[in-house]
């Protein structure tokens, strides 16, 4: 029963990112390198925020304080990733055997975003997954047995959000469009704050609101990448 919980939650959290990785990234070594680099950048950002959290002893017990710094550092490293990619873009392209690379400027944004997301998702879920093996589940003191599935769903949401945030953020940086950057930072804070509702066991509210933010962000990222609703519908029509 409980091993099923472990595998189901893993599927929910990492199934979709794995499918995306397999179809768009795995076949290109350069993309893999960028994704790993992005994942490493996320780790560095988390290291720094944890150092801040650790250093400021009196505020250690306040989760909100740690969260604010975590979001700030993540966004800072996203910007750093942007600078790094724009600097190395030409070189990467030269050594790549894939000529199509770089045909869309935001392709690298998507790859690095997925790297960011997967690493943050792994961190958020690994310890929860470790306890999902059982034999127990939450409920003795508080919580319900649905804690694990909601955690996995939230993790999936964060992975996808990070992917789309990177696309919007890079696009915003390219165009000097501060609204886009602003939306990324704002929605990041918003979703992170929503997770505080989990303390009141309002899991449904958190998930629902977070997925609404995810859909808005996804649509926006799609537009940034140059897609329109019309073109999407047209893609289903027969090729001329």
């Amino acid at each position, binding site marked *: *029963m*409980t091993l*099923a*919980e472990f595998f*189901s*939650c893993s*599927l*929910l*959290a990492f*199934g*979709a990112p794995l*499918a*995306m990785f397999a*179809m768009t990234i795995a076949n290109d070594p350069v993309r893999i390198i960028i994704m790993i680099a992005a994942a490493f950048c996320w*780790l560095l950002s988390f*290291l720094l925020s*944890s150092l801040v959290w650790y250093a400021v002893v009196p505020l250690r017990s306040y989760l909100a304080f740690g969260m604010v710094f975590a979001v700030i550092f993540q966004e800072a490293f996203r910007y750093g990733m942007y600078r790094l990619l*724009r600097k190395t*873009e*030409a070189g990467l*392209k*030269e*050594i790549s055997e894939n*000529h199509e690379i*770089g*045909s*869309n*400027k*935001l392709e690298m944004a998507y790859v690095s975003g997925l790297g960011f997301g997967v690493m943050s998702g792994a*961190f958020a879920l690994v*310890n*929860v997954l*470790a*306890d999902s093996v*059982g*034999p*127990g*589940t*939450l*409920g*003795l*003191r*508080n919580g*319900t*047995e*649905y*804690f*694990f*599935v909601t955690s996995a*769903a939230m993790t*999936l949401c964060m992975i996808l959000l990070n992917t789309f945030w990177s696309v919007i953020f890079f*696009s915003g940086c*390219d165009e000097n469009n501060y609204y886009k950057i602003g939306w990324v930072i704002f929605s990041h804070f918003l979703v992170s704050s929503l997770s505080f509702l989990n303390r009141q066991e309002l899991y449904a509210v958190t998930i629902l609101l977070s997925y609404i933010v995810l859909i808005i962000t996804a649509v926006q990222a799609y537009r940034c990448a*140059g*897609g*329109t609703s019309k*073109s*999407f519908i047209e*893609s289903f029509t027969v*090729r001329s």
Partner: protein
Amino acid sequence: MKMYQLGVLSFFCFIALSQSERLHEQIYSSIEGGAACFRRLNGTHQAGCSSTDKGAVGPVLMIKEINDALWLTQNGTAGPYIAVVSTALFHDIIEEFMNNPTNVAGILVYEDAYQITSAFTHDSKCPNEYSSGPGSTCSSSEPEGFVWNEKGTDLMRRDIPFPMFFLPESRIEEIKKIEECYQRYNLDRNAHSGKPLCSVQLHSFMFAAVDTVVCLRRSASSAILTPTKVCDPLGDQNVYYPLFSRAKENKEAKRPVILVTARIDTASLFDGISPGAASSVVGMVTLLNTAEVLRSMIPMSKTYGTNVIFTLLNGEAFDYIGSQKVAYDISRGAWPPIMPLSPTDIPLHIELGQIGGALLSHRDEESWPLYAFTPNLSNNVDKVSEFVNALSSDLKQYNMSLVMTATDNIPPSSLHSFRRILKNVTESGSLTEILIADHNAQFTNMFYNSALDDYTKIGFDYHNITVGSDGIFLQNDEILAKGIMNATEIQVKISRLATSLARTLYKKITDEEYTGANQASAHLVDEMMYCFLRSQMCRLLLAADYGNSGGTENLPQKPTPLYVGVSAYSLTAPVFAGHMLALFTGMHFPELNRTTCDRIDKSEFSYLYLKGWNNTGVCIQTTMNFSQAISPAFVERDYDYASGFYSTWTESVWQTMWARVFVAASGNGALAAFIAGAVATAIAAFLTFWIQRNAQRIFINAPTGSLVSTDATTGILRTVNC
């Protein structure tokens, strides 16, 4: 760089771990203070309990009445269950569980002060039945046969197919925790399937299996470099104290010796909880006091024709380990190590058996009915009745009675070992044997060898009277005159029994009636009982501790554990008893310091350096000594373990024992996660596939790359292998 990454990773692992610990604490609550039933093995069988390697898990079912147990074994749908049952109900339901164990994952037994437990004994109906001497008619297998321990469930000698834990009264809050969780999740019994259920995990995995032969073989064979041990023989030390030093006796004409014995040990089904108040402590304390008062009665300057050896036997609960070893060594001429006795040197053996069971029912009167059992032999009736009459008439002045029974069906006691191993002398009548007990046909103790056989079962109230730094105890006359205790209290009764026995022995040794005023002190009995039954942090043990041991704080505030344990580790009970004997009967030399005390020639006496009454250290000259209490089966070469002649008990090795309570998932969460995961993955896969395939048509406004590379440059680079 690599090192740096490694550092970062380990740092995060640390964070992840500490978070996971917090979640872990949310899920599980450990059940503290439980004592697990463990496995013992004999020459042919395994007995006791073991969980699986991962522990037994099952939903909780609180057993409030017998019907609950029947429902569990017959109708339970979400099983196997962990049954949580009080000691009061345990005897009524255990057979049901033993007969239908398929739906039982484990049992958690708890002691509840608000429910009266009428009986709780897991020894056999005929304790040590298969080591009984000739003429025993007690049979646990015959349904209507005569038995000593009628309430005995025999669980200690049966293979129990599920693990069991015991929670003492002091841990009742753990049961409240389980009850609360049970009320929330498990109350609706018919809707158990498909719901999250309050569950308990019991972990007590035992390494040994099958029987002693197999487990000793497994312990001897070891994989390369990793010696494995799966079981140890039971055993510890016997304590013996000759009244007069025997070292300088004439080998050819040794003085005859009266053997006075009692048992030290008791047992229980559960690890670490074996108080043994009525099973063994009262007998042991009576013996210690008899020795003390007899020593004070006899003038040491004279020499007499008879000696007495007071012996405390260990491991008697497990087929008489201690007495088998003593009898075996006497038959080989090897006990005591200095000036060994031969069987014919012992004219009389008196055992203080199980006395104490009748104390509670006689708590309001001065009387205490005692019984003397002796083997049915025609040629020594005179010897026995002479002794019993002397003791009986002395007891009469205290309103206590002693009734003699001549029968070959003798209650469980060391007499059985002597009657089997020293057959020649016991059958010829040259060794007369008497057992003193306070039950006649059946045990008066309903808690024989169990975890509940504690001080309350004999009605012991501690009086906490101060002891001066000279180690002088109040005399009975003073105690009774001042009203500190009244004559119905067990301390007084035990001290009177000890006095009477000492007077009778005095007469045997000196051939004169005792005319002095020395008596055993109820005050001393009070202190001794407190040390064994309530707390080892007591006045006597502080005085009887080794003089060179550190602070006095190291003694735990728990009853002295009286389970014999494994022979590889020496436990405290025989050491305590031996040191008390030395302290009360030995010569004190306070002027000697430790180094000189250690250096004295030890050929005639042994010397112990103890803390003494004023805690400054005192050198004690004593004849008290220890001898090994390990079954002859492990001593004799090529002993056939299946023959059943000697005790073959071994105890399994285990690593950890723990229990915890938590809520087990119904699987709905897993199902939800699986469906959501499958749907999300399918949608993501389709969208990614579609968008990637039609990227050109979809991203019509795609921002183009800032650097447009030419084919020429790529061509150059591509010739370079990098």
